[in-house]
């Protein structure tokens, strides 16, 4: 019973990192979003193994690494920057928080632009064949999540510049960064499925 007693017990008040309900909510958002990407990739592999119309991916569909590999590295660096920002505010460094978020935001935008080039380089559309449908819907779902992440990063940057956070109060940063890491991590699975797998066959 002793460990339950509230007598003489100092309790943290308000929203604090992993003690806040918001942080847990984002954790479960990530769980259900991860399930979406799992089902998307299930669909991809299902269609691939059930394919009766010739090669997979279809001619002209094999994904090039020229843009996508550097772009993947850019996205990972963006995650590192967001991590650095959170790491800094835990030590009370508001300036480095803003710098970290700004770098993460810029790198995220660069990724989105390069992904736009990647799309425009394709010789097929989502309506050409099932591979095209899968390619565009999978990368499109990721882009939608990326945009949500960029809006979140922008909001976090604004709040950071307004001086909202310190070493104790920065749950918005922890939860936002958590989501951003998810957007980056799930890209790795997509990159593996769409870009690496065809070379392993």
């Amino acid at each position, binding site marked *: 019973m002793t460990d339950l007693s509230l007598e003489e017990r100092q309790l943290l008040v308000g929203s604090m990192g992993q003690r806040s309900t918001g942080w847990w909510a984002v954790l479960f958002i990530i769980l259900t979003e991860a399930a979406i990407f799992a089902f998307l990739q299930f669909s991809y592999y299902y269609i691939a193994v059930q394919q009766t119309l010739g090669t997979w991916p279809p001619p002209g569909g094999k994904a090039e690494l020229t843009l996508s590999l550097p772009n993947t590295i850019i996205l990972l660096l963006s995650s590192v920057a967001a991590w650095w920002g959170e790491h800094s505010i835990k030590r009370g460094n508001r300036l480095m928080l803003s710098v970290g978020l700004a770098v993460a935001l810029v790198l995220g935008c660069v990724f989105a632009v390069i992904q736009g080039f990647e799309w425009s380089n394709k010789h097929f559309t989502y309506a050409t064949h099932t591979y095209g449908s899968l390619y565009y819907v999978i990368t499109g779902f990721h882009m939608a999540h990326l945009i949500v992440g960029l809006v979140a990063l922008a909001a976090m940057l604004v709040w950071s510049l307004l001086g909202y956070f310190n070493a*104790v109060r920065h749950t918005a940063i922890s939860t936002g960064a958590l989501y951003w890491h998810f957007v980056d991590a799930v890209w790795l699975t997509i990159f593996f499925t769409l870009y690496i797998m065809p070379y392993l066959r």
Partner: protein
Amino acid sequence: MTVADYSREPRILAESYDSPLAERLKTLWETKPGIIGWLSTVDHKEIGIRYIVTSFAFLVLGGIEALIVRLQLAQPEQSVVTPTQYNELFSMHGVTMIFLYALPVLSGFSNYLWPLILGSRDMALPRLNAFSYWTFLFSGLFLYAGFAIGAGPNDGWFNYVPYALKPFNPGPSQDFYALGFIFFGLSVTAGGINFMVTALRTRAPGMSINRFPMMIWGTLTANAGNLLAVPSVSLAFFMLWTDRQFGTHFFNVEAGGQPLLWQHLFWMFGHPWVYAIVLPAMSIVSDGLPVFCRRPLVGHTAVALATVITMIIGFGVWVHHMFATGLPNLAMSFFNAASFVIVIPSAVSVFAWVATIWTGRFIYATASLFFVSFIWLFVIGGVSGFLTGSVPVDWQVTDTYFVVGHIHYVLIGINVFPVVGGLYLWFPKMTGRMLNERLGRWNFWTMFLGFNLGFFPMHISGLMGMPRRVYTYPDGLGWNTVNLVTTIGAFIFAIGVLLLVINVLVSRKHGRIAGPNPWDASNLEWSTPSPPPPYNFVVLPTVASRHPLWEDRLNETEGRSTIHEGAVLDHGKETLGVSPLDAIPDAILKMPHDSIMPLCLSLSLMVLFVGLLLKTGWLIGLALLAGCIFSLIWLWPRVSQGQRREPAT
């Protein structure tokens, strides 16, 4: 500045519900009067009741659709409705009952009861709770808007391709269904996240995971399943919509697509969903039945584990819906075996309920009759499910009325009967008044006899070869009598539901005053006044056993729960945060005030889905922009919520 500046030692006091503290808490937690207050409330009790009322309204709509279908089938060669109308009626009936009634009604009970059972002042994410309700309501209205203009779903609730694709289904029916379901899925997801976080974080000290009442286990398991399963079908509906509207080729064989992909994605969701809409209802019985047997549930731990295991195995049985699609024997054998294995945890629960009645002192009440009859119906539905889960039997009865009989025994037997029993049990807590027991007996016997009269013959018509979903049937096949009996039974069942509605409406105003614990039950919700005040608990209780109100009687544990003495928490809206497993208090959480943002965000989603339906760019853009602004207002860090540093003074 250090962490110590951000902490506080809560005052521990013994207080009653008529103290000045209670008055102060009431002003802190009470929803403001007026229409804006009504639209802004985040009180879980208000939201829970709205969930229950709305889902019952959908139940009545779905019931009326079913009665029209039954009129059409009462005699051979009838034309009460046209074939097109018939397709939409049976499809909308399925969609309404399975999506708009079965889960939301359970979410309603859990929303209302969870914080009371767990010893907390609200759900962990009260605004998300309001959002999930509004989104449920609007998605239901969206689906019914299609139905009202003659464009309801028309391909059954599981909506197989290729019939759902554009060339075979050119009208907007399928677009309403596809978008409407994705919309509804957002509500389920929001609700699911809220239940997960609430179970892990906002409980009374000592409400450790091994002391969870079954209501927590059932709903927690269902929502964990939903978070993993709903994306599958939302994705399938998205693919269907793009196939129809943008010429993608997910399901189009000619361009390399696979119609069976639809069935896989649908049933990978569909089977866990079946458990999501029965496990919380089963847990209503697991918590409710012992109240009327005057003893704790036999095998509490075993039933809790059975609940979780059922859901886990439930993710591995989806192919038994697809035995007739020409899959390899190996796959069918595996899923056949998995479907048999799932009988074991179900049987554990059944034996636990029977043993509880056997070893307890059974008390006849309307609620307990519903609970006991549920066990009977569950066994019938389980046996017919066991049969259809085996490949050879399934090949004989698939797509016949046998399956229709099975699904109704499962869904009405395991969902509606426990829910109505639960209503008799908890209505006094929700309103402060008892439901009328005399009318209740009429209610029960009409529903029970009507149900069995209506739905048992479906097994027989199925075995006689009557296919499901046929518009009509010729005379002379020997199906006339069973169909007429089914129709009569369905109408008697409907009268039973009507008696329930009458009972609720009358007893709400004129029922006997209940008091805090009219059933002398054991869980924490019965320690509060009926109906509970907006803040639930005047001081936060500490829990020392599974049965806080029966401790002196059972004498199972040394410690005693403290219910009328505990943390005060009155610096604004506050509740305790605890560690996920052992429920050791580790934070004072600031709870959000009432907010109109959940409604605004939900409305912007409504506009978004209308925009997608009409493929109107500016409407979509407007809705996205509005949704973005509302989300930012919602999430903006606030000093009062302890989300941002206090400005220097």
